[in-house]
Structure formats: structure tokens, C-alpha cells
């Protein structure tokens, strides 16, 4: 090797590379035809007028973009999506951390507790959302009944019926689904931290909080980053919870981008507008994904 006659061609188009491309071909074909092509098609839809079945009519340039960007609702939805994502992820991380700390204490029944904590994550999100819809029921739901009976809240709200309470109820379900994942990742990280570190902390006379801040947190910093990033993407994409609980209502008080895309398309049959919002969503997700991928690979290099 090394001779200039060994061209790039033979370096990269040898038997090994050919086999590699052949093995990847089925996956690539599927991804191209059912992921890349549909995304390209969505871009087209956003630039064309579409009929009620989503078929392309005539080229309209940026018309649909201008239409969407000129509505207040779109901007409100975008801001709400950001609030939704950040708020949910922060609460998930905090609650996840508390659960991880609790599970990191040794007592009998800890394994059972761990198993039980996982259930919301293990369960199917659409089905959980339907269960929550019943839990939140104003008159017959057991949440309000429990609040009333225990005297915690004698006059509980119509959870899904008013804008603010609907937003809180919906985001809580998303949080509830995402907490166990955070807890498990944090717990795995905590259990990988060497006990010696804590012992030398004890010798230096550090209290529990100091040890948490100076040993535990730095020890699982990477994991916190990864888990937060993954969770942000999932939260941003949580169509099922919102759609099943409120469909974005009442009004647009729980609408996030991803449900707006669906409703503009399949409920109001305004496919161009849906496509514009899908493109916006795509751009946001791509940026988040690239940050995530870079973070991921940087860590691989570090190790």
C-alpha cells in the first residue's frame, strides 16, 4: 500500500466495502422510500397548494409559510411548545433524581419498589393517557374524589376543562411517563460511582448535601446530559398524551407543534399549512438531534 497506484477507488471500492453497502442496502432503501422521500414530499406540500386529500395542486411559493407565520396562534403554539418541553424535562429530571436517590438507599423491598416505579415508562403511552383522562374526570374521577375525601382540596378544578388546569394536567402526564427513565439512568450512574469517593468524603467531614453536590452530581454529569437531551426530544414529540387527553384544547391552551401539524392535516384538511409546521418542527428537531449526536460522539472520544 502507499503507492500512488493504489487509488482511492480501490481503497474504498474493494470487496469489503462492497459487502458493507450490500448489507446496508435494505435498510437504506426502506429509509429512503419511507423516511427521506416523505420528508422531501412534506417540503413540496409546504410550497404547493393542496386539495382536501393532500394532493399537490399548483406551485404557491412561500404563500403557505407567510399565512402560517402571520397567525398569532402559530407563535403562541411555538412558544408553548418550548415552555412545555423545558418545564417537563426539568420536572422529570428533578423527580427522577429524587426517585433515584430514594432507590439508592438499601432497604428490603427496594427491588420491588424499583420494579413498580418503572411501570409508567413500561406501559403504553396512548393507553396511559386514556387512563389519565378517566382519572381527571371532574365528577366521577377518582382523583377529585380522593382530593375531596381527604380534604386536600374540597373544590378541585375541572382538570381538563379550563386552560391553565388543562395545561398542568397534560404536562403532568407527559412528566409522569418520563420520570422513570430519568430515575433509572441516574440510578445506574450513582451505582457506578466508587464507594471510596464517599468514604474519603466522610473522612473530610463532608455532609450529605456536600457529598451529593461534589461527588454524586459530577459523577453522573455525562448521564444527566444524555438523559436530558433524549428526554427533551421525546417530550417535544409527545403527540399521544396531548392528542388523547385534550386534542390541544380547550381552545388552543394545550396545543403543541406536533399536535397542530396533525390537526391542520387530518382534521381541518389544510395540508399546506400542516406541512409548513412540519417543516418548522423538522428544522427544530434536526438542530436538537445534531446537538445530541455531537454530544454523544464527543463522549465516545473522551472514553
Amino acid at each position, binding site marked *: 500500500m502507499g503507492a500512488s497506484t493504489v487509488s482511492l477507488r480501490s481503497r474504498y471500492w474493494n470487496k469489503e466495502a462492497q*459487502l*458493507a453497502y450490500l448489507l*446496508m442496502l435494505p435498510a437504506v432503501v426502506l429509509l429512503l422510500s419511507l423516511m427521506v422521500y416523505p420528508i422531501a414530499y412534506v417540503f413540496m406540500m409546504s410550497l404547493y397548494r393542496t386539495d382536501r386529500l*393532500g394532493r399537490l395542486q399548483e406551485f404557491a411559493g412561500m404563500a403557505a409559510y407567510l399565512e402560517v407565520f402571520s397567525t398569532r396562534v402559530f407563535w403562541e403554539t411555538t412558544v408553548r411548545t418550548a415552555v412545555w418541553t423545558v418545564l417537563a424535562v426539568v420536572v422529570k429530571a428533578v423527580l427522577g433524581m429524587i426517585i433515584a436517590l430514594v432507590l439508592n438507599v438499601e432497604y428490603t423491598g427496594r427491588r420491588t419498589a424499583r420494579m*413498580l416505579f418503572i411501570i409508567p415508562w413500561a406501559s403504553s403511552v396512548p393507553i396511559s393517557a386514556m387512563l389519565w383522562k378517566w382519572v381527571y374526570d371532574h365528577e366521577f374521577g377518582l382523583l377529585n*374524589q380522593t382530593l375531596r375525601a381527604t380534604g386536600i382540596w374540597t373544590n378541585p378544578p375541572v382538570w381538563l376543562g379550563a386552560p391553565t388546569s388543562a395545561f398542568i394536567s397534560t404536562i403532568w402526564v407527559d412528566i409522569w411517563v418520563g420520570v422513570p427513565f430519568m430515575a433509572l439512568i441516574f440510578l445506574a450512574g450513582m451505582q457506578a460511582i466508587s464507594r471510596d469517593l464517599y468514604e474519603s468524603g466522610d473522612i473530610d467531614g463532608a455532609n450529605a448535601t456536600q457529598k451529593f453536590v461534589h461527588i454524586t452530581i459530577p459523577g453522573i454529569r455525562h448521564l444527566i446530559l444524555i438523559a436530558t437531551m433524549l428526554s427533551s426530544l421525546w417530550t417535544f414529540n409527545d403527540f399521544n398524551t396531548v392528542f388523547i387527553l385534550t386534542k390541544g384544547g380547550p381552545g388552543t391552551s394545550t396545543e403543541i407543534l*406536533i399536535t397542530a401539524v396533525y390537526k391542520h392535516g387530518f382534521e381541518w384538511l389544510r395540508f399546506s399549512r400542516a406541512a409548513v409546521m412540519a417543516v418548522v418542527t423538522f428544522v427544530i428537531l434536526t438542530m436538537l438531534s445534531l446537538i445530541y449526536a455531537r454530544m454523544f*460522539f464527543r463522549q465516545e472520544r473522551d*472514553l
Partner: protein
Amino acid sequence: MSNWRTRNRPLVILLTLLLLGLMLFPFFVMVSTMLKSSQEIYVVPATWIPRNLTFANFTRVWIEYHLLLYFRSSLIVALGTMALNILVSVPAAYAVARLRFLGRKAVMYLLLAIQMFSPVIVVISLFRIFARAQLIDTYTGLILANTVFTISFATWMMTGYFSAIPSEIEEAARIDGCSRVGTLLRVMLPIAAPGLVTVMIYNFITAWNEFLFALTFINARAKMPLTLGIYQFVGRWSTQWELLTTSAFLALIPVLVLFYLIEKQLVAGLASGAVKG
């Protein structure tokens, strides 16, 4: 921290129980509701423990509401997704893990990136594409859509498992005259079997829980998977909650069992960038 721990153990246990109550609340409600009669669910104040325990809802969902059909659809779609996914992901993962070719790094980047794409982005155009290809109301359509959205994670996980196998093992097999594909099938796959099972179960669960594609592509009741089928109990004016919770309970059992089998590997896989080494 250990002194702190022993001193506060009762407190920790109390906190655990409180948190568990919070996290499991909807499932208590589910079990309570599914054992009530259709009259009792509309009683004020709502009862935690049914006054008249009844299992009538179980027979009703099977006999009157065709739950079996939904189960069948879910099973077909989940098994189909699992099979198709493995067929395309395993060879791709082997290539990424073991072969040198131009663009390997780009492929890995791409796999991570597309894992994050929301199905909602493509569903509006996929609907057109499926309509033209006559894949609306077919299992094939659902299987294809579910497979595409599980390829990246499956390939990513399998790449990890293949990379962990020492290359000496593979080289030994190659010296004995095994072809590349032969080593993949006869040496690599058996060693990576636990990983393969994890990925298969993950695919199964994902397809079993899927809702958006079913909602968009399936109109015929006989073709509805469980998630969409159960959603049919939600009416515009009233919902048959006792039947919904009963069906939910039955639909959740298989996924919960499967999830516990792979939970450890799944967590490790999702965090692999940070836990590895």
C-alpha cells in the same frame, strides 16, 4: 452518606411509598374501574373499592366488543415489525460494526439523528404515499411505517453488541474457511443472541404501543390494533370507562412482562455513550 442513610431509612421508606402512590395512581384507578359494573362507575362519590365486584366486563370486551380482533391485529403488526426490522437492521449493524467503508461515520451520525424524528412530520405525506400504494387499511402499511421508525435504534443497539465481540473470534472462523455472511450467521449472531432478543422485544413493544400510524392509516375495525381499538371506547359525549379499563389492563400485561425482560439492556443502550468503558 451511609450514616445519613441508616438514620433516615424510615423517612426514605415513607417517601418511597408516597412517590409510588403518585406514580401508580392511574393503575389503581384502572383496576378499581374494571371490576365495577357500568352503573357503579357513575356513582357520586366515586368508590375506591367496588361495592359489587364483577368480572362481567371481561366477558363483555371479549364477546361484545371484539377485543380478540384488536389483539390479533396488534400481534400481526408487532410480529411483522419485529421480523422485518431484524432482517434489515442486523445486516446493516454488522456492516457498521465490522466492515471498513467510506461513510461509516456518517451512517452512525445519521442513525442517531433520525432516531429523534417524529412520525408526525412524515405522517401527512406518508398518508398520500400509502393511499397511492393502496396501503391504507392494511397490516403491511403499519408494519412498514413501524419498521422505518425502529430501524435506527435497532441498528444502533446491534452495532454495539457486534462491536463488543472480540475480533479474534471472527477471524478464527474466517481462517477455518467461513465466509463473511457465514460468520455473521454462525458465529456473530449466536454470541450476540441476548442483544438480538432485546432488540426484537423492543421492536415488538414499540409496534404494540403505536397509536399515531394506526389512527391515520386504519379505518376498518377489523384491522385496528389494540391502542386504536381501545380508543374507540372514548366517545364524543360519553366513554365506556369500565370497558376501556378492562381492555387496557389486558393490553398492558404483555408489554409489561416484555419490558421487564429487556429493561436493564434498554437503559444501558440508551445511556451507552456515557456508561461505556
